[in-house]
């Protein structure tokens, strides 16, 4: 049975294998080229520090050449799950129903459940392997660029978040099972492909927008009233800002205090003068609510478990849809 499914899916597997070889070669070559550039520009140490502490033409030139390319590689990792859902999941049963070949399997002694399970697993395994290897390859490239690449945006930066951890596998499981279910339900490959893509994009988008709501932000305080990023570490996402008064309570309307410090004439006010004026008007300290970096793993797991739950539902739905098929 495994052989039969493997033989049926052979063109897909050849495509996946070819794609992986090409992708691996491209990524490894690009990565090697990038590392050579780091050495040539003498900015190897900037990878572990940051752009700010590494000001200079070499670092800027480096980013101009490489940042977008690395970014594209991350986007590929994000797009691949959708492709797997559309081109492997959706046609898995829809094409059989369309061509009537499910009857061939149904008229042999293999049970429907076993046929279904074998098809489902044999088609899924290479796809998941593909995603995992691609993710690791891209990750190694992203890591090599370090703070000069997308990692400077922190773990919540959308391409970084979605292209690492358990996320790519979770998205793949979701897209694949969604495609399988929709295909088994509607029995038309084209309908299944369209619906899979639509639902996948909608659900992924909706959950990505809610992502930052699930993290409990932490409040960082600073005596620096004027710098909007005071006390914020690199990579932390700022979700709210404000001021505290001398007692430590949040100032409800800080702009009222600020307005009093705007001079009547168009003259330059120094930072020290402005700070002093704000302090006189009740703004003691500034604060920022930021998403803690160490919470990123929790968010990954939380999001992945939602997608895994949906995947389980789709698997059950597929079983139901195939079993009722005559």
């Amino acid at each position, binding site marked *: *049975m*495994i*052989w*039969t499914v493997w*033989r*049926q899916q*052979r*063109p897909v597997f050849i495509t996946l294998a070819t794609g992986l070889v090409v992708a691996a070669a491209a990524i490894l070559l690009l990565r090697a080229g990038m590392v050579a550039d780091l050495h040539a520009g003498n900015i190897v140490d900037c990878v572990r520090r940051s752009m700010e502490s590494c000001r200079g033409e070499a670092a800027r030139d480096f980013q101009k050449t490489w940042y977008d390319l690395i970014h594209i590689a991350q986007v590929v990792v994000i797009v691949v799950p959708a492709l797997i859902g559309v081109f492997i999941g959706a046609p898995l049963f829809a094409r059989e129903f369309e*061509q*009537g*070949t*499910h*009857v*061939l*399997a*149904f*008229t*042999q*002694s*293999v*049970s*429907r459940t076993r*046929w279904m399970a074998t098809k489902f697993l044999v088609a899924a395994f290479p796809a998941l392997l593909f995603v995992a290897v691609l993710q690791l390859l891209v990750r190694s490239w992203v890591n090599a660029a370090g703070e000069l690449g997308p990692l400077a945006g922190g773990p919540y930066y959308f391409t970084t978040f979605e292209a690492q951890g358990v996320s790519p596998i979770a998205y793949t499981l979701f897209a694949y099972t969604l495609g399988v279910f929709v295909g088994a339900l509607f029995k038309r490959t084209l309908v299944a492909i369209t619906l899979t893509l639509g639902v996948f994009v909608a659900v992924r988008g909706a959950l990505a927008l809610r992502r930052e709501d699930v993290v409990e932000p932490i409040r960082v305080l600073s005596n620096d009233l004027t710098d909007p990023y005071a006390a914020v570490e690199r990579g932390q996402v700022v979700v709210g800002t404000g001021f505290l008064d001398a007692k430590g309570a949040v100032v409800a309307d800080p702009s009222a205090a600020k307005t009093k410090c705007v001079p009547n004439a168009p003259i330059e006010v120094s930072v020290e003068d402005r700070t002093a004026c704000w302090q006189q008007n009740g703004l003691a300290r500034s604060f920022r609510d930021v998403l803690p970096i160490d919470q990123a793993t929790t968010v990954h797991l939380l999001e992945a478990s939602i997608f895994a739950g949906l995947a389980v539902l789709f698997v059950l739905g597929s079983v139901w849809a195939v079993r009722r098929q*005559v």
Partner: protein
Amino acid sequence: MNASPVHAESVAKHFGRTRALDDCTFTLPEGSVTGLVGPNGAGKTTLLSLIAGLAKPTSGSISVHGTAVRGRMHPDVSLLTQRRPLYEQFTVREMMRAGAAMNDRWSASRADEMLDLLAGVDKDAQVRTLSAGARTQVAIALALGRLPKVLLLDEPLSDLDPLARDETLRLVMAEVAERGTTVLLSSHLLTDLGDVCDHLLLLDEGRVQVSGDIDEILGDHQIVVGAAGVDLETDGVVVDSSHTARQTTALVRGGSVPSGWQTTHPDLEALVMGYLRASRSRRFARQ
């Protein structure tokens, strides 16, 4: 429980409000070749898939060699469906390997034997490149590899040229002669059926109209011809009658020979045609 190869007891299958089959009771004897005939939509395909176990009857029961058929493929039954589904990308050899993989009981030599018959099928050819005749041969080989005791063939002869038709029937007959397999085949090609079938199962609107040994059935029916305008007085059942300006022809089941009428026994084709015509006029009368 009835130990006949196939026994159906008041089988009904409804799809929503449509009654595909209703109260079908019949028995197929061991080693018989039964022609399943009826107009389009009579429920032939539904009946075959119920016997195979592809679908469950709404009510009633079917047994194959004494064991009940329930909702999954009966191990003793092979079904060749109308579309003859095969994996197009597979070679014939790979198709047979798939057959072996998907069955608990499989005889590669039995399947190969079938492939080698007639002109023989190229085992390295891809299924999609095969002619309709060779395709049917592959499908039958796949069905026989399961070593069935009951072989169900849904329209095995449609879209075959006369030569391929003849050859396909010879393949089936060779199987029956060698293994004593019970065969139920549906077809619209009455002349071909007459050559191979010894039993008949005639369905119309989901009900069994005629079932049994063909010779007995033909002996039980008569075609009577008489002058137009004369009332046909018979204690038999008038299945169908047609009138021309000069004479009346009727197909009568059972009863004695009415006096003053010319009577002959119908051949299979005339019998089935009589029933099909009657079915059509019943349907017209209802509209």
